[in-house]
């Protein structure tokens, strides 16, 4: 056992045991399950932060590679690995005003860069998009919790 006399005062009434001083990896997350800060601190710090109202999940995750899934009726936070977006566009070359489609896509943010640059919030369902200006477009889709996926679409005859 850790000698109680050498344990630094914590000031918040929590009993500090030896295992509470072991370095522990955990992360804070927002209401969507995105991780926002990664911690590697004594376990007592995890409890102190929980007591202070932070949303925390134990485990070693990366800000961009992991997320929190809320499991069961209690919505218990569980650290999960973000996976690749499973779907892709049905075409990589389309005419001006022709549609490229990703069927049944989860809600997400679509960002495109090319002769026309912009961003679109997809509410979920079939993503059906097209462009009026020919060129090569880089389309990035982030349908959280899937990892961002990047596609190249060629639009028009002159691109």
């Amino acid at each position, binding site marked *: 056992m850790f000698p109680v006399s050498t344990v630094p005062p914590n000031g918040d009434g929590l009993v500090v045991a030896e295992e509470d001083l072991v370095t522990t990896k955990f992360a804070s997350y927002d209401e969507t399950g995105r991780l926002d800060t990664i911690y590697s601190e004594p376990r007592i710090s995890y409890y102190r932060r929980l007591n202070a109202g932070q949303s925390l999940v134990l485990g070693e995750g990366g800000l961009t590679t992991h997320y929190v899934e809320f499991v069961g009726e209690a919505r218990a936070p569980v650290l999960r690995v973000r996976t690749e977006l499973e779907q892709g566009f049905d075409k990589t070359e389309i005419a*001006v*005003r022709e*549609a490229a489609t990703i069927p049944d896509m989860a809600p997400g943010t679509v960002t*495109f860069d090319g*002769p*026309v*640059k*912009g*961003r*679109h919030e997809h509410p979920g369902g079939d993503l*059906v*998009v*097209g*462009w*009026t*200006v*020919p*060129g090569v477009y880089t389309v990035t889709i982030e349908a959280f919790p899937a990892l961002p996926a990047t596609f190249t679409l060629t639009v*028009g*005859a*002159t*691109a």
Partner: protein
Amino acid sequence: MILFGPDLGEFRERAKTALMQHLVALAERDAVPPTMRAKYVQKLAEATAFKSSGVIAPLLAAEAEMRGATVDEHADLIISMSAPSDDLEIYRMRMNIAIDTAESEDEISAILNQAKVKFSIDLA
């Protein structure tokens, strides 16, 4: 379907603006300050006026004397130096007409590619 980008009419206008900006950048890549560029325009006006009416403006006369040329020779030199600008403007007008008469976005895009114009619209 969600269609991103301008309609054909707006693309036409934006294409002409992009072409103009591209050609202005080419014409002004010598980094001559606007004040000096205005002087060039003034000199050209003086040279043209001399050739058409024989009026000798002070700036034209002083510069011709400094260069050891006649006013007529110097006016010819100034007018000849403006030729590249004329060529550029003629090119711009020709491309503008092509853009105006293009029947599709693909045609406009091909014209811009031919003129090496980088076209971009940010919808954000």
